[in-house]
Each structure stands twice: as C-alpha cells, then as structure tokens.
C-alpha cells in the first residue's frame, strides 16, 4: 500500500479538496474515488459498469479526460488532480450534465433509417462499408472527445467529434436510407467544416476511435454528394 495525494475540484468551495488515500495494486482512478467516498460521503461522482462500456465515469485526471474505471493510478506519482469534464455544466463535484453532448448527438438524427428498397441488405464480413462503419462504431458516448475538443464545449454550435463520428458510421452504412439528408445536416454551420485537426478527440477516445478521421471522411462524402 502506498499513500497517494489526491486533489478534487469540488463545486462547494467549502468542501474538502485535499485527500490522502492508501492504494494497492491494481488501483484505477475509480477505486480511488470509491475509497475517498468513505472518507467524505458527500463526494459526488458517477459510474456504472466499471468495464469501459457505459461511459459515465469520465472525468479529467491531471487535466486529461479519461474513464475513471480504465485509468490505472501509477504508484509513485506525485499526486492526482481530479476535475469534472470541461465544456459541460457541472451538476455537483465531478458530475456533469451531458445535455449539450446529447443534444448535439441527437441533432445529426443518429437513428438508423431502413432503406425503402424491398430487400434489406446485409453487410458481409468483407463488405467495404463494414470497415468504415466499424472504425467508428464502438463509441460509448463518454464525452471525453467533447472535453478534449477545443471547439465543442466552448462553442456550442459545433456538433463535436462524437456526433459527427456517429453520422459517419451511418453515412457509411449501405443499409441506411437517410444518407443524403444526414450529409446535408452535417454540412451546415457547426458541422464538418468546423474541425481544425487538433485531434484532441482522437487522442482522448478511450475506445481508440479516431473521430477526426471520421469527420474528414464525412466531409469528403458531403462534397462528393454535392451538399
């Protein structure tokens, strides 16, 4: 067991910010939070699945947006700084309101719309559109990319990396019938022309998705479709 200094950005300025916690190995940042909750029961943070699937435990650790459940604490580190995600309103302590994120997601009309063709298409393992879809499919809506993007949270008209990545997976899908409409949606203000290749999103994605590449791909298609 090693002592670790932890500083937490609290929404109540009176609340305790500095803690010391004994950690063993392995310890994730989520384990640190669960341990600290026993010291200070008023500490607010959220998590659900603890296996990097729900995307609700996203916080900033030493400034970087990460999944608390998937971030090991390095023993011997000179302390941790834990903050809520940036670019989203804070509910309390480390809990943020993800409404701006989901509003952006919703505005690309993220739902699959079956084609009107009589025969539903299936995508075989080697179908070319599968590779494009799968490159962006495993998004867990954790919001790490939103925080890591210099544009998304600060400037709410930008749809952000995750929503555009979702639009890409749909536009890539030969089974989807709303391609033209969606390409038009993402070509407007706040859409694909907003990305400045900062790649904060791609560097932050805990699922290894490259949303910046998805946005560029989506933009190529928008141009190709004459939108």
């Amino acid at each position: 067991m090693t002592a670790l200094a932890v500083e937490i950005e609290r929404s109540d300025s009176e609340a305790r910010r500095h803690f010391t916690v004994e950690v063993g190995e392995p310890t994730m940042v989520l384990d640190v939070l669960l341990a600290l909750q026993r010291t200070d029961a008023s500490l607010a943070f959220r998590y659900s699945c603890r296996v990097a699937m729900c995307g609700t435990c996203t916080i900033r650790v030493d400034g970087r947006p990460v999944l608390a459940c998937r971030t090991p604490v390095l023993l011997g580190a000179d302390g941790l700084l834990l903050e809520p995600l940036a670019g989203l309103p804070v509910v309390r302590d480390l809990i943020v309101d993800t409404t701006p994120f989901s509003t952006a997601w919703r505005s690309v009309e993220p739902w699959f719309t079956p084609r009107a063709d009589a025969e539903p298409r299936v995508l075989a393992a080697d179908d070319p559109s599968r590779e494009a879809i799968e490159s962006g499919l495993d998004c867990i809506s954790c919001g790490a990319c939103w925080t890591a993007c210099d544009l998304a949270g600060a400037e709410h008209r930008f749809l952000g990396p995750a929503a555009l990545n979702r639009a890409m997976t749909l536009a890539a899908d030969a089974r989807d019938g709303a391609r033209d409409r969606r390409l038009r949606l993402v070509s407007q203000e706040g859409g694909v022309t907003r990305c400045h290749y900062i790649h904060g999103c791609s560097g932050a994605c805990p699922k290894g998705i490259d949303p910046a590449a998805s946005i560029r791909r989506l933009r190529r298609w928008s141009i190709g479709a004459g939108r």
Partner: protein
Amino acid sequence: MTQPRIVAFLVMRTTAVVLAVLVVGHFAVTHLVNDVAETGSSFVMQRWSSALWLAWDWTMLAAALAHAGAGIWLMIDEQAPATRPRRLYHAALVVTIGVLLAVGTAALTIAGTR
C-alpha cells in the same frame, strides 16, 4: 445546392495549394534570388511590364484574400455569438477584404496599362 460552408471549405483548400506556390515563390524572388534592397521601383517596373508577373501577383492577391477571408469568417463564427455583433464583424471583414482587393487590383491595372 451545395452548402455555403462546404463551398468556403473548398475555396480554402484550393487557394491554399495555389498560395503555397505563389507566396513562397514571391518571397523567394524578392528576398532570396534578389536581395530585398534591390527590389525598389525599378525592379517593380521591370517586373510589372510582364503580363506573367501581373497575373502572378493578382492571382496571389485574390487567392490570399479569399483564403484569409474564409479563415477569418470561420474564426468570427467561433468567437462571436450568432447575433448582431457577429454580423457586424462579418461585414467589417467583407469591407476590409473588398478594399484590399480594390486597391490591389487598381494598382496592378494602372501599372499594367501604363
């Protein structure tokens, strides 16, 4: 109908490639091939007697203004809320770009027809 933002994007990228050649070439000619001290009025007079250089300079000017205009338009979009001040900034940008294009075009036209 192609979306205006896509058009702006395409303008940005095409002018970028054009400018990469024209601006670096321009700088090389005025600073590296010739020393900058030797690029006075006689140098300009000689250069602007050639239609090629006139075309070069005007294309460079127009492309640079289009490129910068599109870029700054986007920056205004990002920094200013979509209300009155934003429209004002956009208008100021358009006026500035227009003045520069007018001055530059006039200068080149006068020099070319002299």
